[in-house]
């Protein structure tokens, strides 16, 4: 009977062992990319460490075999159990030594696991089991356990529980094996009572981790963003995180900063007012994107605007910005203005189907970083937009940074010209973004940058406006291709430009 307990424990021990290896491999490929490299190095390090562990097991004295086995199980339970959460936090809070920690953890777990099987074999051997039978039984269960986890991990555990929680779960299994061994062999293990206590403590830690790992992800992200997170939600389209530090509210979408409340007025005044000041007759305005309601806030300041249509993909985004108190304060509750109509639809598809026409359109899409997004800055898309804007109307496009991504910026400009717009490129400095660019487009060549603003502004005045429409020598126009859908030149420009800037 007692022998059987040991053999059974091999099954669980083997499954836990493989699980930690898979978790480390999956987590590092998730965080660092290049899964082939990550898995190879993790597995290599792990197997080597197992060899070291097996070697070390010879230094365990015969009478201590069971006690050491229990200790090893507890150590694996603790280290293995917290490894995934620890790695995640380390990546979020201090990105530099992540790899060091990864391989240290993998090595430690591997070495401990390398000790397990030799110890079990010795314990069985001491109980006079026939050698052939012993080897066969132990290894059979070793491999069976590995099979079970290899199948469970990708199908059930990783998708359902996530990596951090799976780690805690397997840690608890290791501790359970230790407790079971103590329970079965009781008297044969010195200091059993003390070990039970230790096991209980570790079990509680792991259990708390299992329950609280959602919270851990939150803390991890707080590390990444640096500030306190006031809102975080994952929608089918994106992960929205809102942080606060003193009076600075920030919105991140998929980890990219969208605005900081300290300087967003610069961005949104620059986006909206040069065009709106020139359209005192404008009644209907279209915003594509802009689910934060900030461009909306600026447009609604004009009493002659009778209707604003805002098309944003994500209903959870517009809901958040029309209900959350600090955000509503920021956008002056613009979503509840009776002149506003919110359409939660894919802007590109909506433009294709709508028959409405507008006096002004503001296009505030994410940067053209993928081929899918690049299509929203293309010749046919702007052609479509042109059909829905009045002949005297204006279009303004968020166009990335003319300083950091000049080829991309001027490609967007060339694309607007390609569909017959007259273009009036301009730029401004937004401290949290750097130098940022817009392009104002008109079907007729009648735009003059405003010399004054009818409404009070925090940032814009005549001088600033004049400067915005002037490009200094280090930001001059470059000759680039327009963004045709067939070649998608813009996405390549954008990629190359930012590669040059980001280390």
């Amino acid at each position, binding site marked *: 009977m007692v022998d059987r307990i040991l053999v059974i424990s091999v099954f669980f021990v083997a499954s836990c062992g493989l699980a930690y290896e898979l978790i480390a491999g999956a987590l590092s490929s998730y965080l660092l990319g290049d899964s082939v490299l990550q898995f190879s190095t993790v597995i290599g390090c792990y197997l080597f460490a197992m060899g070291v562990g097996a070697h070390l097991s010879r230094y365990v004295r015969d009478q201590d075999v069971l006690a050491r086995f229990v200790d090893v199980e507890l150590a694996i339970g603790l280290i293995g159990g917290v490894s995934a959460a620890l790695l995640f936090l380390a990546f979020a809070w201090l990105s530099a030594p992540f790899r060091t920690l990864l391989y240290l953890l993998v090595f430690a777990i591997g070495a401990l696991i390398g000790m397990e099987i030799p110890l079990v074999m010795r314990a069985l051997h001491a109980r006079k089991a026939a050698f052939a039978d012993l080897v066969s039984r132990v290894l059979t269960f070793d491999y069976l356990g590995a099979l079970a986890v290899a199948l469970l991990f990708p199908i059930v555990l990783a998708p359902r529980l996530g990596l951090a929680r799976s780690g805690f779960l397997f840690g608890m299994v290791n501790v359970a094996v230790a407790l079971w061994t103590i329970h079965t062999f009781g008297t044969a293990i010195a200091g059993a009572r003390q070990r039970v206590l230790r096991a209980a403590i570790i079990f509680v830690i792991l259990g708390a981790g299992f329950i609280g790992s959602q919270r851990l992800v939150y803390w991890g992200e707080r590390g990444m963003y640096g500030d306190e997170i006031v809102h975080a939600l994952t929608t089918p389209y994106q992960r929205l995180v809102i942080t606060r530090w003193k009076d600075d509210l920030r919105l991140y979408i998929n980890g990219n900063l969208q605005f900081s409340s300290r300087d967003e007025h610069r961005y949104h005044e620059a986006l909206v007012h040069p065009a709106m000041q020139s359209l005192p007759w404008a009644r209907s305005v279209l915003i594509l994107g802009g689910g934060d309601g900030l461009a909306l806030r600026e447009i609604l300041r004009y009493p002659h605007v009778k209707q604003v249509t805002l098309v944003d993909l994500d209903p959870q985004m517009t809901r958040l910005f029309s209900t959350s108190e600090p955000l509503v304060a920021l956008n002056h509750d613009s979503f509840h203005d009776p002149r506003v109509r919110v359409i939660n639809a*894919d802007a*590109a598809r909506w433009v294709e189907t709508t028959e409405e026409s507008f006096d002004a359109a503001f296009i505030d899409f994410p940067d053209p970083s993928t081929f899918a997004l690049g299509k929203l800055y293309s010749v046919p898309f702007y052609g479509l937009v042109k059909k829905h804007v009045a002949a005297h109307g204006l279009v303004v496009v968020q166009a990335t940074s003319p300083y950091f991504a000049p080829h991309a910026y001027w490609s967007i400009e060339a694309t607007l010209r390609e569909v017959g717009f007259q273009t009036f490129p301009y730029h401004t400095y937004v401290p949290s973004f750097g130098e940022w660019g817009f392009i104002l487009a008109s079907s007729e060549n009648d735009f003059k940058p405003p010399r004054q603003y009818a409404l009070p502004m925090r940032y814009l005045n005549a001088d600033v406006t004049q400067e915005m429409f002037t490009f200094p020598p280090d930001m001059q126009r470059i000759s680039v291709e327009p963004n045709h*859908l067939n070649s*998608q030149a813009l996405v390549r420009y954008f990629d190359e430009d930012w590669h040059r800037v980001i280390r």
Partner: protein
Amino acid sequence: MRRRDFILGAAALAGGSSALFVEQQRLAATVDYPGREQGHWLRDTQSLPQPGDTIETDVLVAGSGIAGLTAAWQLTKLGIGDVLMVSGPEAQGNAAAGRRGDLVYPTGAHYLPLPSMESRHIREMLFEFGIIQRDPFGERPIYDERFLVHGPAERVLFRGAWQDGYLPTEDSGPAERGEQERFFSLIESYSSARGKDGRRAFAVPLELSSTDDRFRSLDRITFKSWLEGMGFKSPTLLWYLDYCCRDDYGRHFDEISAWAGLHYFCGRDGLAANAERGAVLTWPQGLSALATRLQESANLGRNWHAGSIAQLRAVPSGVEALLVVFDGTLKCTRVKARLAVAAMPLFVLQHVLSDGARYDFSAKRDVPTYAPWLVSNFVMRAFPEERAGVPLAWDNVVYQEPGLGYVVSTHQDIRLGRPERTAFTAYHALSDMEPNAARRWLQSASSADLIDAASQDLRLAYGWRLPLCTEHVAITVRAHAMAVPAPGFLSNPGRIALRASPGPIFFAHSDLSGLSLFEEAAWWGYRAAQQIAATRR
């Protein structure tokens, strides 16, 4: 006892999880065999049923593939209104499409190269449908970019990572790159070459190609032996050229005429003002988009008749045909027409045309070999995770695989968010089997066998994730998908005779060219309509 229980329990656990895994790895498919039942009945039947009613019409168009639809479109345009279209067993033929929920996908061909200068019939069609927006007959027309394939157009899975383009270049050495350059400069010179008759060496439509023996002699050897003669050895280049033959003609390059092999590269040199060289036109539902536009413009209304023409012959008063409808029972109607367009493949025509000798058409001599294809649509409930390298493209090819890769039906979408679902259309010409053996295999293959064959490329690209993301597989078995342009095909006498038919039956099908291309099918349909219109004047 307890040990036994435990071992059993452990085995059950391992077995259970394996079973769960295996079960999730299974793919469910529906299999469609368009025209199989009707075709085999036509082949095997001894006596045709007696017709009940008689329909009279001015022009009968038998077949609703691209040739038949182009003929109907032109006839309507030329003011010939009394046209009866008999669809054949599958409406739109090789240009057909399928649908599942709001997703549409091709069950046949999926793209059209930019038309060459000679393809005026295609340019006319595209201009009329608004696909060419300006300068339809110029060197570089402006196209509606929604239908020009969006970048990235293609990629190849080579040594575990995806690369841009079809031809692996990143890991190939200087010798390989040198050969690639030599091949393409050779193509360049052939593309502009003209024969003694002043015509281009390789033109689309094929009929407008030069008859100069300098080029025609290429039809006597296979593409493979021509390449060997030219000293090409690069494995990646040879793989690519063989791939092109399989992709367009359904067979390996050692079975394809060298003339046809070169025609693939030299004939399709249409340009656009707003696309790169080599761009193509494509739609989520493939060429069904164009077929449907042709159908709408032909404005057939009630003159569209589902059913098949089982017999066709010239009579003193014009043409007589038997229209059969398989609708549980067999319904048979006589059709009397002044003129007819037989827009059907030659392997069907041999059973339908009761007086073939009159046109010097001999079934034994003139019916070409047909390549069997599987067109399999994997309706995906999610996009599976990609391997390393360039992102998902429109056409995705796996290096050195028997399959021909897969096309993404939602690639042309212009939208902010990624669609939740998509369809991957996997093409597989059964070119590793002799065509008749492949057809016998298709007859007996279970849907599981077909899925195995159809999913090879996708399995390599996505591994065990493929089944987890797949909602449904719709397989279309096209056992006679296309005529194979084997050496000698250009001089086949029956084909030449059918093209020259003075009526009352005119023939229209890409089989008259021997190349299964939209442009060729449309050419013969267009020409038949012109000939019919000429009989009026």
